[in-house]
Every structure is written in structure tokens, then in C-alpha cells.
């Protein structure tokens, strides 16, 4: 069972790596915005499987932190794109 969980973790990681190769290159910034979500969701799956394989329950807390911070990073990316305006992006100074 441990071997299966490790293999599953490795497989998910490989899928994430493949996806990243495509996304990080992706022409235009819209693709790159997804990178944090991809690494986040895949990373969480990998961490949960690793935690079950090595029987270290604290890994779940790392997965929880990863979830929250991946969300935060993606929102920061969306707000930080070097581009034009939209109701969720306009910033004003007074």
C-alpha cells in the first residue's frame, strides 16, 4: 500500500510538471495565472498522498497552508497583471 501511495504521489507530481511546462511558457499572461493553482492543487494531492504513505499526519497541515497560500498568490497575480482595467482591478490614488 505504501508503495502504491508513493507511486500515486509521483504520478500526480509528474502530471503537475507536465502541465507547468505548458503553462509557464504559455503565450500571454493569462496562462501563467493558472500556474499557482496548478502547483497548489497538485501539490496538495501529492502532500496528502505522501503524508499517508509515510504516516506523518502533520503533512496535512502543510497541505492546508499550501491551499490558503496558493489561493492568495493567484489573487495577487490577477491583480498584478501588467495590463488594462476592469472592475476588479482599478486602483486609485487620491
Amino acid at each position, binding site marked *: 500500500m505504501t508503495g502504491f501511495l508513493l507511486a500515486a504521489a509521483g504520478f500526480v507530481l509528474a502530471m503537475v510538471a507536465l502541465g507547468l511546462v505548458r503553462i509557464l511558457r504559455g503565450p500571454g499572461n493569462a496562462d501563467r*495565472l493558472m500556474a499557482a493553482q496548478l502547483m497548489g492543487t497538485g501539490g496538495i494531492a501529492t502532500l496528502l*498522498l505522501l503524508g499517508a504513505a509515510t504516516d506523518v499526519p502533520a503533512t*496535512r497541515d502543510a497541505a492546508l497552508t499550501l491551499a490558503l497560500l496558493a489561493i492568495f498568490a493567484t489573487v495577487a497575480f490577477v491583480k498584478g497583471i501588467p495590463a488594462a482595467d476592469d472592475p476588479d482591478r482599478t486602483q486609485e490614488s487620491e
Partner: protein
Amino acid sequence: MSLVLDVFSIAAICAGAFFFLAGTAGLLRFPDALTRLHALTKADNLGLGLVVLGLLPRAGGVLPALKLIAIWLLVLLASAIVSQLIGRAARRESRLQ
């Protein structure tokens, strides 16, 4: 009993891994940022959900199991919102080009 649970775990995790594969295949093959976004947020979330489902019998208690489900719900919420935001950004980019 534990054999049944093990088989269930393996089946669920395999299904989850398959959805991750589908998501990555979508990322690699779809022609457009919006379609790639769809592949990422829908397939990967389902993959994560099935992985969490498969790990529930091994969680070691009700509280850890609830923590696993909470993580999955968090990712679901995040993906729903984030796909809206990224989708809007992608449309703006394609309009500007």
C-alpha cells in the same frame, strides 16, 4: 474489512490520478487559455476530491478525516472564484491582442 477499505482506497486514488491525467492532457492540448482554465479547475479538483475520498479510510479518526474534507472544500471554493477571475483576465488579454 480492511481489505475492502484498501481496495476502495486504491480504486478512488486511481480514479483521482486518472482525472489529474485528464486535466494535464487538457492543459497540453486545448487551444485557448479559457479552455485550458476549464481543464485545470474542473479536472484537477475532481482528481483531488477522489484522492481525498480514497485517503479517508486511512485518516485515523473522525477529526483528521474532517480536516481532509475541509482542505478539499477550500480548494473547491478557491477554484470556483479563481476560474472567474482568471477567465475575465484571459478575455481581457485576448481582447487587447
